[in-house]
């Protein structure tokens, strides 16, 4: 199966729209991968990546780094925060990986390209540092798609 890039997030929560924005930039160019947008609902993410060899999840992250910092993580080798589990609202890739593990439906390789967000308040539009980081994030996704050396 072709590689998959999943843009996760909510473009109506400011920088949480970074994942969708990266996928839209990839869409505008020739890329050897299926591109999908997702809201982060874990079981849908598992459905999306089930059976794939290579999956790249792009999402806004909050690690405390400077806004716009791009991080590339081997999501299967990293403990991602599973996020709040009290509600069926607000879940994300961390929980989706837990689901994938429980159901034995994880891709062979799963990478997370994250962009450090500054503002997750209500409304559309990315903050300038996140907007400025999109090209770097797109390049990071391309390197992952191009082969193991790029990682």
């Amino acid at each position, binding site marked *: 199966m072709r590689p998959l890039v999943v843009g996760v997030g909510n473009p109506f929560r400011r920088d949480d729209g970074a994942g969708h924005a990266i996928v839209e930039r990839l869409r505008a160019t020739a890329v050897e991968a299926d591109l999908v947008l997702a*809201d982060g609902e874990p*079981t849908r993410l598992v*459905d999306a990546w089930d059976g794939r060899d290579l999956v790249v999840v792009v999402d806004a992250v909050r690690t405390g780094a400077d806004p716009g910092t791009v991080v590339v993580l081997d999501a299967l080798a990293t403990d991602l925060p599973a996020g*709040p*589990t*009290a*509600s*069926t*609202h607000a879940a994300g890739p961390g*929980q989706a990986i*837990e*689901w994938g*593990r*429980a*159901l*034995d439906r994880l891709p062979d390789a799963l990478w997370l390209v994250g962009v450090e967000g500054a503002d997750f308040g209500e409304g559309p539009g990315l903050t300038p540092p996140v907007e400025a980081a999109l090209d770097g994030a797109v390049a990071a996704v391309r390197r992952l798609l191009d082969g193991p050396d790029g990682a």
Partner: protein
Amino acid sequence: MTHRPPASRTLKVDALARVEGEGAMHVEVRDGRLHDVQLRIYEPPRFFEAFLRGRRFTEPADITARICGICPVAYQMSACAAVEDACGVTVDGPLRDLRRLLYCGEWIESHALHLYLLHAPDFLGYENAIALAADHRDRVTAGLDLKKVGNEILEVVGGRAIHPVNVKIGGFYRVPTPTELRPLAERLRTALDTAIDTVAWVAGFEFPEVGHALELVALSHPTEYAVVGGRLRSTEGLDIASHEFADRVVESHVEHSTALHAHLLERGEYLVGPMARFALNADRLGPEAAAAAAAAGLDPSERNPFRSIVVRAVELVQACSEALRIIEGYERPDRPAVEVTPRAGVGTGWTEAPRGTLWHRYELDDDGTILDATIVPPTSQNQPAIEHDLFHFVEGNLHLDDDELRRRSEQVIRNYDPCISCATHFLDLTVDRS
């Protein structure tokens, strides 16, 4: 138990787990007696009724769909019913069948989600569905497949799985071809088998021996297990048309909730949802669902809220078989929608959302501008009944320590599958024993 709990204590659950949306529970025990139980709904108010004022009569189906990501179709269908009522239009025949098909998709998606991911872990002693899935992989995979079939119906008939975009006043923007529906039929045959198996699975769970005497209220239709349209009936003899709803149901604000509480005038708390529908309409289930209910030992006198999971499973069978029948008999309607011309007046309409009766009322100007809108979702109707049930449950279980009482109380709330986001105009648990 190695010690007695204190005579006065407060139990709090600040964010209830495995419910739709965000709410809390607060229990106060004073001198060994239960003083107060509150289901606190603290999601901010949503203001949808106010958004609708000044909008066109064609817009409620799209605007109100945004109230809920789990039951958008319910909002669309009740909105259409109410606006069409105001405009003197009836949608029937194959367009009404397509609406029922779309609604079946939502019931399948919503019931499968609640049953497998939110409710079943309570009965099998798991903290969450992921832990359940690790030990019962095939079962949970089947449940997720069932949910997916529901989503697929929404995609094909509604245009997309969340907040469908193909519904309009009078019908649809575009109606599917029989060829587009055919792959769904194949998926639904498997889903129907899974649903029947699900009934047998959940009927085997252990249930505490409890019951309630609440009035059960649901739409009732002469020939169908009511989903779209019908009269509102109850186990205590209520029998009203949609335009009488506001005369019989009073909504009031309570300090601890951004969801309005609903009561039947001069009667008090009541309960809508699967147990009410089954109690009132079991004789109109399709043969597959009726057989599954009978095999599970379920009958219309069932009043144990913990067994609501069995009723939801029976309704999964009903929704799958109904969807299958509609697809097998489907002929594409000549036109995707009937024309609706606005006129000044008031319209009301209701349908059976997965969680119970959802009532809308619109007042229109002669040019179709919405002057006033009222939406009464099922969870806000159920909120006083849930508190009532919770009160009696906690009162009978004060001997339990805080952790166990908190855990079981959350289960009581999940029996009702509250949809807090819908109800806010709401869930955390606190128990105060001070």
